[in-house]
């Protein structure tokens, strides 16, 4: 019998805790596939955030640490410095990374920590029931912006890739989308490239994954994909911001 599809070895068989239509599971899967394909599982450690993916430490089948809200890049720094022979990644939501953990991500990126950060942007706080995130779009309604995000009052969404791209040290920065099967294939390529660079200890690598939150957006899963395409992608453009590996190859 030929196996044509299976759970990646880098995922445990613990059942995901995600809502129907949520794309965290897709993000987990492509990261795990990349780890399998690059044969990294046995010397990789991950850091789970606080957010819907808080249980990521149970899902990825490598050694894992659960960090305090926003602190994953600092925890990962300690891990990488303690075990430079191993490979470290963090997995974080937009509240975790771009609000409470802004200082930690900025400085880990600026130091050029040799790690990969997977940043899942769903424009909302999922875990706590749909409050406004630093990435919530202008006019978008959430439980704490019930009249729509008022940019006069609370400012505009933060574009994290663009911000980190102002630093000298980062090695690879790319924004991808998980909104169509083709997008997911492209996302997988970027994820794998980041992990490949990680394996080679090249430097700080950062992948933002544009995602959805049907439950808290109050939109069904299929329509959520359309909504995100129409509303998120114009603001958060899918693009490669930096690839020092490709530059070196030129």
């Amino acid at each position, binding site marked *: 019998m030929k196996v044509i599809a299976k759970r990646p070895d880098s995922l445990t068989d613990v059942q995901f805790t995600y809502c129907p239509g949520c794309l965290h599971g897709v993000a987990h899967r492509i990261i795990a596939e990349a780890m399998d394909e690059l044969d990294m599982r*046995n010397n990789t450690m991950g850091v789970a955030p606080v957010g819907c993916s808080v249980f990521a430490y149970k899902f990825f089948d490598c050694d*894992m*640490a659960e*960090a305090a809200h926003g602190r994953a890049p*600092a925890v990962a720094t*300690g891990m990488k410095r303690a*075990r430079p022979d191993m490979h470290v990644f963090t997995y974080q939501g937009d509240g975790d990374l771009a609000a409470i953990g802004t200082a930690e991500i900025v400085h880990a990126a600026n130091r050029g920590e040799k790690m990969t950060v997977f940043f899942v942007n769903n424009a909302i706080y999922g875990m706590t029931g749909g409050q406004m995130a630093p990435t919530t779009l202008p006019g978008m309604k959430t439980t704490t912006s019930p009249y729509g995000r008022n940019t006069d009052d609370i400012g505009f969404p933060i574009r994290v890739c663009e911000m980190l791209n102002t630093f000298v040290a980062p090695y690879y920065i790319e924004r991808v989308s998980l909104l169509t099967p083709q997008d997911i294939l492209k996302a997988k390529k970027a994820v794998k490239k980041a992990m490949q660079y990680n394996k080679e200890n090249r430097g700080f690598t950062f992948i933002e994954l544009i995602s959805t939150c049907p439950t808290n957006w109050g939109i069904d899963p299929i329509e959520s994909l359309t909504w995100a395409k129409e509303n998120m992608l114009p603001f958060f453009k899918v693009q490669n911001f930096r690839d020092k590996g490709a530059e070196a190859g030129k």
Partner: protein
Amino acid sequence: MSEKVLMKGNEAVAEAAIRAGCRLYFAYPITPQSELIEYMAKMLPKVKGTFVQAESEVAAINMVYGAAGCGKRVMTSSSSPGISLKMEGISYLAGANLPSVIINVQRGGPGLGDIQPAQGDYFQATKGGGHGDYRLIVLAPNSVQEFADMASEAFDLADKYRIPVMILSDGLLGQMMEPVSFKPTLTAEEIAEKEKIHLDWCMRPNEDEPNHHHHEINSLEIDPNVLETHVLDLEKKYKLITENEIKFEEYNINDDNQIVCVAYGTASRIVKSAIDQLSEKGINVGLIRPINVWPYPSNAIKNVLHKKVKKVITFELNLGQMVEDVRLAVNGQIPVEFLGKVGGLVFSPDEVIKKIEDNL
């Protein structure tokens, strides 16, 4: 032990930590502990160690969390305002059973306070500070030598109980120079040997396939029944520590003490010289000096309450924090008096003598 050298407390404890196998240190500058971070910045690279100047104390303690999760001897240090920022991380370290060493070179507070010695962080160190039911082992030195000796002791205790250990020092001990001698430097093999006890839980490569391990560093237990078990396990550990790790000094404790004083750290030095001067006058006063302030030497205090002792007097560089533990130990048997000094000031022996004489 090495030959004696004259050193500041901050530098001595840093040197002692390196000798005790600390190869990872993360911190953020703050007075009056900056000599410590500067010493580590200079010396760690020479022993292939790692120093990272973190973007904040919050980041520094979380770097400690990551490195401790890898089973390595790791340390951070700060002074009062920075220790407040570390409290989130300390709670997580305690919840995840992570061995680590934290040094607080206390200064005056609250808020930004000042940069002079104080003991205002006693409650924070011994009663929590961060959220949740947890304890730290808290060591309180009163000399540069003891400050340095506590570095290796702190790492050994942290390893033994898988617990964060705090050295509760102050600006005077950090800045003051005294002669100090050091224990021999642990070799790389000796450090590796010490860290071996963590291999069955820490994050490390999966070298032993097919026995693949999946180690989790974590303080989250979403099921209340599981969390209950976890917290009760912590309690068991804290009870064991209370049985084994109480440490105190008796100074001039005898059957004829009229008054027994209780003081720790810098305050205890002044009380000692007051006791010496009083004994020249024929006044017999003893001192119980807690060396570890958690677990607390309650029985040591209880045991000196015999007929001749009229009062217990607690001396602290704060408004009265440890005195609550003294009162619990004395449990109403005799009066407990208190003299405090705040603002980063230190009382003089004469002020201590007056307080004692007023209570004779």
